[in-house]
């Protein structure tokens, strides 16, 4: 009995470490987004809470904790209450096989990348539940839009990941990183195209501009999380930024050689690459306008899917020919 329990202690500690990292990284990303948008718009961003607004996210979280919890009348209580959990839990579980460093990984599944991609697509159910449960027309439209968007961008995402799997030959995340010791994957031309497609469908996956149609500020007021206040809204916020981190971390692992780097602390390289990709996505967020619903769908099915299919064929042909 003791043996059975003690074998779970390391996993428990790793889980707590991951939870701590998620909370910190979500708060840091919220602060980073406000600072980058301030830099782009020639202003200063949060300044009054600590040096350069360091504790701004702490203040936001504590304030959201204190807010009153309002249940809209006529809301479908269980669905409405469960929705934030359906969005947050997949974002946390996906950290199971995220290769932070050569030895920093919770558990290196041999189907690592497949696990991450399937877990992160559960959050669309949560978004749809939030849309339906809030008994609010704007949320309903937001929910339906997000379902269509994530489904149509799941296909190019997986096809571009498929190219990397074909190149590295393994599904496990550590294996993919080790396969890039010779040369990072995105240096190869066909994998570079997969990298671009991956980034485009990743912005769509995490509902960020130019694909932030579900919670379009100017049309649907606040999209699917219009009716959520206080801690439930904070969970949506944390889930959104954690998804952003997952997507950039997977991109860094698959295309930019994960924790590979010239000197020892491998975790440093992983975080550096992940955060540069996040900064790039934030830079795009504050520059481009939003794409319309049917243009977004058309772009996915008429352009991204054919190009990624051709890319998979070319990679297969190259592998067969080059041996």
């Amino acid at each position, binding site marked *: 009995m003791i043996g059975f329990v003690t074998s779970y202690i390391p996993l428990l500690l790793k889980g707590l470490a991951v939870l701590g990292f998620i909370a910190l990284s979500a708060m840091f990303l919220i602060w980073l987004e406000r600072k980058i948008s301030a830099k782009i718009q020639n202003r200063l961003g949060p*300044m009054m809470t600590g040096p350069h607004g360091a504790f701004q996210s702490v203040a936001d979280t504590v304030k959201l904790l204190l807010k009153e919890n309002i249940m809209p009348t006529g809301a479908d209580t269980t669905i409405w209450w469960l929705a934030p959990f359906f969005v947050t839990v997949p974002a946390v579980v996906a950290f199971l096989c995220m290769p932070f460093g050569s030895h920093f990984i919770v558990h290196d599944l041999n189907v690592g990348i497949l696990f991450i991609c399937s877990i992160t697509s559960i959050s669309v159910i949560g978004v749809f539940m939030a849309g339906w449960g809030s008994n609010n027309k704007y949320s309903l439209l937001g929910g339906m839009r997000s379902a269509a968007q994530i489904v149509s961008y799941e296909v190019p995402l997986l096809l571009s990941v498929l190219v990397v799997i074909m190149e590295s030959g393994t599904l496990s995340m550590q294996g993919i990183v080790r396969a890039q010791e010779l040369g990072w994957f995105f240096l190869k031309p066909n994998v570079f195209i997969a990298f671009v497609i991956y980034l485009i469908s990743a912005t769509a996956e995490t509902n960020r501009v130019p694909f932030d149609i579900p919670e379009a500020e100017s049309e649907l007021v606040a999209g699917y999380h219009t009716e959520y206040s206080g801690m439930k809204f904070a969970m949506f916020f944390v889930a959104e930024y954690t998804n952003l981190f997952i997507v950039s971390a997977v991109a860094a692992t698959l295309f930019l050689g994960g924790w590979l780097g010239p000197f020892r602390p491998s975790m440093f390289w992983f975080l550096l690459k992940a955060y540069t990709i996040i900064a790039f996505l934030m*830079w795009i967020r504050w520059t481009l306008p939003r794409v319309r619903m049917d243009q977004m769908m058309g772009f996915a099915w008429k352009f991204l899917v054919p190009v990624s299919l051709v890319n998979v064929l070319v990679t297969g042909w190259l592998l067969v020919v080059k041996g």
Partner: protein
Amino acid sequence: MLKEIYQILIGFLSILKGLGVTWKNIFRKPVTMEYPLDKPVMTAKHRGLVDLIPDKCIACLQCSKICPTAALVVSGIMNPETKKRAPDKFVYNTELCCFCGLCEEICPTSALFMNKCYEIACYQHADLTPIDLLRSNKYQHLTSPRTRERKK
């Protein structure tokens, strides 16, 4: 088909140009004026709160007639010694005033002017309504945040 690909490429280039603009802006100096730390200097003609030099005023009621929102309530009496009219009641309603500057222009003896005070925020309604302009410390209650001590 070729035209389609060409369109996509042109589109991609235009997005990159847009990103270039924001990239240039990242390295520009922020234009923000940090308000409570360094406060702006009001321009010469700035129309702040209405203010009065009591002894220059001859209570001709021109200003209260011209005021579009009837924010000035003035009544004057003939002062026997100095044989001049002097205001005995001069009430200014900040909440009705529209800061148009007509009273300042019309005042023949320029006793009434608009001062440079622009920080008018308070907790009670009563701080704003009838302000007696004859009193000397009429605007003391409108406090303003401390500015940054200039490191000379």
